[in-house]
């Protein structure tokens, strides 16, 4: 594809912990062979439950962390093994937005200084920094006099707007947002989601949107990757994933989501058991311990992500 911005190939991430005792090491396989492509201007939603590796994936693509193996092709160059210094010019183009707007703003600095910092690092002149900061404040819907205020004077939703403004200062192309609205109240969440969409249309941004809220992800995304224990189990367009899910985990996840409209209530499918720990991942298909349709073969054969109809699915039983 001509306008492909990112191609992730077979990313693996293994963390080592010293928790084994007597000098033994435990290894946690946080990501186990994740691959996908991203086209300029689209939004890929990544959903999954705690421990599925969705945040790790976001951190690795933005190179806040390094993969153990695999390639991250950003605009034709593999950035998976680039050093910090080599990454620096690219940071302009790839920006990250964190979940907690209370922890990601320095409480002792004025909003103006916070927003200007990335530009200062990348050598933008003082006057231009100031004009751009003011423009951005306006763009994200904050008052111009916010420039001289401090983070504590703002509510959670306003802080997240500041964080977004800061991420936009260097005219990025790819924004990776890790649960950017989950700390916000519902009425504020809607405002921030709308802002994400407006900015995308205006600045042709590409988003990777990591979240656990199925409603939020559906609203913002063009395509969705469903993750379970370090793997993508299903990948497809929003319509396909929500209207015609193929993987049993996707089905269960959607059916577990509490629905406001109870009149259309279909039989709810409730998964038994807990999410296994990535420390002791089940053999074969890692979902087989909770899967309602698992057969003995699933505990030995690990399914690959392959195209079935309109989506990519990793399940031995879906044909």
């Amino acid at each position, binding site marked *: 594809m001509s306008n492909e911005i990112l191609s992730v190939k077979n990313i693996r991430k293994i963390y080592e912990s010293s928790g084994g005792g007597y000098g033994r090491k435990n290894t946690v396989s946080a990501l186990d062979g994740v691959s996908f492509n991203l086209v300029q201007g689209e939004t890929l939603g990544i959903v999954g439950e705690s421990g599925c590796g969705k945040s790790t994936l976001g951190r690795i693509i933005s190179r806040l962390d390094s993969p153990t193996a695999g390639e991250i092709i950003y605009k034709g160059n593999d950035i998976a093994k680039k050093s910090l210094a080599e990454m620096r010019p690219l940071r302009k183009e790839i920006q990250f937005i964190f979940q907690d707007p209370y922890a990601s703003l320095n409480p002792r600095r004025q909003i103006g200084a916070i927003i200007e910092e990335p530009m200062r690092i990348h050598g933008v002149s003082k006057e231009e920094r100031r004009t751009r900061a003011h423009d951005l404040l306006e763009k994200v819907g904050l008052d111009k006099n916010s420039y001289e205020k401090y983070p504590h004077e703002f509510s959670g939703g306003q802080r997240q707007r500041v964080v977004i403004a800061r991420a936009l200062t260097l005219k990025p192309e790819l924004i990776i947002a890790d649960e950017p609205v989950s700390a916000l109240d519902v009425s504020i969440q809607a*405002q921030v989601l709308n802002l994400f969409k407006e900015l995308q249309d205006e600045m042709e941004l590409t988003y990777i949107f990591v979240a656990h809220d199925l409603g939020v992800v559906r609203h913002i995304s063009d395509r969705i990757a469903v993750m379970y224990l370090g793997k993508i189990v299903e990948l497809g367009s929003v319509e396909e994933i929500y209207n015609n899910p193929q993987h049993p985990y996707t089905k269960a996840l959607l059916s577990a989501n509490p629905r406001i409209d109870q009149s259309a209530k279909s039989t709810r499918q409730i998964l038994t058991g807990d999410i296994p720990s990535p420390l002791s991942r089940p053999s074969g298909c890692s979902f087989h311990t909770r899967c309602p349709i698992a057969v003995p073969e699933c505990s030995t054969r690990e399914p690959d992500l392959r195209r079935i109809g309109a989506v990519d699915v990793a399940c031995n039983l879906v044909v």
Partner: protein
Amino acid sequence: MAEKLLEVKNLCVSFKTRKGVVRAVNNLSFSINHGEVLGIVGESGSGKSVSMSAVMGLIKDENAEVTGEVLFNGEDLLKKSDEELRAIRGKDIAMVFQDPMTALTPVYTIGWHIREQLQLHSNISDKDAKARAIELLEEVGIPDPAKRVNQYPHEFSGGMRQRAIIAMALSLNPKLLIADEPTTALDVTIQAQILDLLERLRKTHDSSIIIITHDMGVISELSSEVLVMYAGRMVERSTKSSLFAYPQHPYTKGLMNSVPRVDRARTSRLETISGQPASLLNLPSGCAFRSRCSSAHAACTEQPVFTADSNGYGAACFLLIEGARS
């Protein structure tokens, strides 16, 4: 009516702070019958958790002022001494908190937690208490309860801890269970298990449940009646079905439209409620929602009265009063 289990009348909670008086709960009145599930929904700072802490008599701060009546089986809980309350808390009214990670003492076993609860309220031997604890863990769906009862909280996952806490809460067959955001800290598939468990237990134990949440979906799954709070006041009360089909208060409408819903067609924009939630430190005069409301008009500078029908369903908004008149 005799069947009312809990009746709260004109409950007000305020806190004196250095910046002024925070009116956390204002004139809250509602009741719940036997076997009913009442959902309380609202955003941060709407007073939903504080009002339930007041009902449980858990607000002890010297800067706090609690007024009104909390009638539980006809007796006013606010007039009771700590000792009398202790006999009721845990036994007749139990509470499940949001965060299962902090609600258990890490240095004691799960079994100890349940045993303590049982032995505090009844004369029961260690052996019987332990047997009962195993029974309860089994009832809430914890696999291998005989082994699990001797384990410590850190050996349990989040969902299992919440189950253990629910087992504790149910150990003495309380008449009322107050659950404050019981599934907010949990993953979706685990949340579905816990909601299912609460519903099943309500049926078998015949308890009433008050569930506090910000999630309209959770409310919809579990409760039969819903109370919507904004800035310390009840703005709407309704049955679940009519609330979702015909929300009356502009805030309820706004809240429902701003949730991205899986069961509706996708829209390019979400409807939003403009502005920020009202600050409890300096509430605007009149209706607190006025500054964010698209239908606000001159009359809204006065506090609207809660207009209710004979069942107590209704809303606090001038539009409804005016609509009824014309």
